[in-house]
């Protein structure tokens, strides 16, 4: 069977086949604070990357929207899983952006056979174009104060990448985070699973996770402040300057909401929490649970807890 036929059977559709030389691949799915997907989508938009393919949704997702007009079914809309490409200086770049993580039994984050299949399909396309390295991105839930600049916590697929990621701006490897001094944990969901699948097929992988305060990890709104930190690292990787003003307004709006929760903390709790500004990287304690009480119900995320953050 020709590759095109095989790919069609696998559910991969490529509208064009750009000539790329060992492209870097940036991958984003939704997760806690949507830190990763906002980072990857923003980079894709800033670079004006061109859509060139997709993974068919039918076998992975329940439709997200139906349109019915005057008694006639007009259509169904499924979550998209799309590929883009762009040349940045001397570097070729691939993007994959999935609107939803395929999962079993209505879970929010990818797991099970479908998630594994999806990770392999994404990688398949990367390999087809000679990709040697994949970057995924997500959230690192930590004991950071919301008024501080989030750092980027990295997990890599091989020892030789550690020194490289330590040179990225505002970036630490996970074992440098006080709560994670053993450097152990699990990156749940596809942002983690893809790295494992890539490693098993000889492709380098780096997961860059923007810090989000532990007490905000269950909130339903995005956390663009951490996406900005991740984007600054992406810019360094690509050796370019990028204008991140598109994040200014969303960041201001979210800051306003978060400050309104913070303003309702009792004095004693606020004092304890504010110590995070001077003694950063303390283990998260009771403050986490207590502070979540001050998030309005309407801002709490439904469904399962957790996400792509290390656990």
């Amino acid at each position, binding site marked *: 069977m020709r590759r095109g036929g095989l790919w069609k059977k696998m559910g991969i559709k490529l509208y064009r086949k750009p000539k790329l030389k060992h492209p870097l691949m940036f991958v984003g799915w939704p997760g806690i604070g949507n830190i990763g997907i906002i980072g990857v989508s923003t980079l894709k938009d800033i670079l004006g990357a061109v859509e060139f393919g997709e993974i068919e949704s039918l076998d992975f997702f329940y439709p997200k929207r*139906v349109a019915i007009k005057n*008694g006639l079914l007009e259509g169904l809309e499924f979550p998209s899983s799309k590929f883009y490409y762009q040349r940045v200086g001397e570097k070729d770049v691939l993007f994959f952006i999935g609107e939803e993580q395929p999962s079993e*039994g209505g879970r929010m984050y990818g797991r099970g056979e479908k998630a594994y299949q999806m990770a392999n399909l994404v990688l398949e396309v990367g390999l087809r174009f000679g990709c040697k390295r994949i970057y995924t991105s997500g959230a690192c839930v930590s004991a950071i104060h919301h008024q501080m600049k989030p750092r980027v916590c990295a997990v890599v697929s091989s020892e030789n990448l550690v020194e490289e990621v330590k040179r990225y701006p505002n970036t630490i490897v996970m074992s440098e985070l006080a709560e994670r001094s053993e450097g152990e944990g699990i990156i749940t969901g596809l942002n983690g699973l893809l790295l494992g699948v890539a490693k098993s097929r000889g492709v380098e992988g780096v997961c860059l996770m923007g810090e989000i305060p532990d007490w905000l990890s269950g909130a339903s709104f995005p956390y663009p402040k951490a996406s900005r930190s991740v984007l600054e690292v992406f810019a360094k990787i690509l050796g370019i300057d990028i204008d991140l003003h598109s994040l200014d307004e969303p960041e201001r709006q979210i800051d306003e909401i978060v400050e309104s929760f913070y303003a309702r903390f009792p004095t004693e709790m606020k004092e304890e929490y504010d110590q995070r500004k001077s003694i950063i990287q303390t283990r998260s304690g009771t403050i986490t649970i207590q502070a979540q009480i001050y998030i309005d119900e309407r801002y709490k995320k439904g469904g399962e807890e957790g996400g792509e953050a290390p656990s």
Partner: protein
Amino acid sequence: MNGIKKEARRGERLPVKIYRTSGLRNPSLIVGWQTQDAGKFSSRVINFLIEKLGGQEAAKIQPEDFFSFGGVRFKEDLVQIQESKFWASEKGNLLIFKSDEPEFEHYRFLNSLLDVAEHYFQIKELYTLSATVSLIAHTHPRRILTVFNQMGIKKRLEGYGLESMTWQGPPAISSYLLWVARKKGIPGVSLWPEIPFYLAAGEDPGAMKAVLSFLDERFNLHLELRVLDEEMKRQGEEISRLRGENADIDGSIRRLENGLPLDEEEQLKLAKEVYEFLRRKK
């Protein structure tokens, strides 16, 4: 070539078991769901049809690819099992399907459903049954809102008093099935009778009667629907008694009867009180 043959050619296991295929000639397929079943409308209509028409078990979709089996569900103290079964009724020339909504592989499940119906029974059209929860009083007539997947079947069903739905949002499985049917060229309609919101947690014989009357007329079934008239009468009398005992409930229902809205608290109270009252009287 139909879907089943395509699947077989790919060497995939067919997730179906066939018991009998004879007796029907290009039947109409009626599909009901027993999960998320407001007013138990869909499952009760299907059970009513199977019983009154003497439906014979004809096929089933094997559950293991589509359900989690993480335990067993029970409802009103009774263990419920996931079933996805077809019944054949020569009366009315109907193929009837009842199932839980699948937990996984929705697209493959819906394809399998229609593949069986097409390949083994050569169905000519599809009817799906779901209910829409509405801010109406139980004393109001039940409209049947409809969604068609082709203009042709919409035209054919003019004159039955059906009303057109307009809506955008997350799709129910009936809409998804209708969409898959259109991809396969099978004309279909989803029937969405209105159910007063305060009967949604219990039962609504009024919605059943409305849809069964439509199906009766459409397929010349000669169904005896008096039992539903009696059920509606009994339910109406019980609710009248509650209205007599509780001025707030009476006021809320009166507002609905006059086409006036209720706030969230009033809706919750009405739904809870009516449900509890009818349950105690059962």
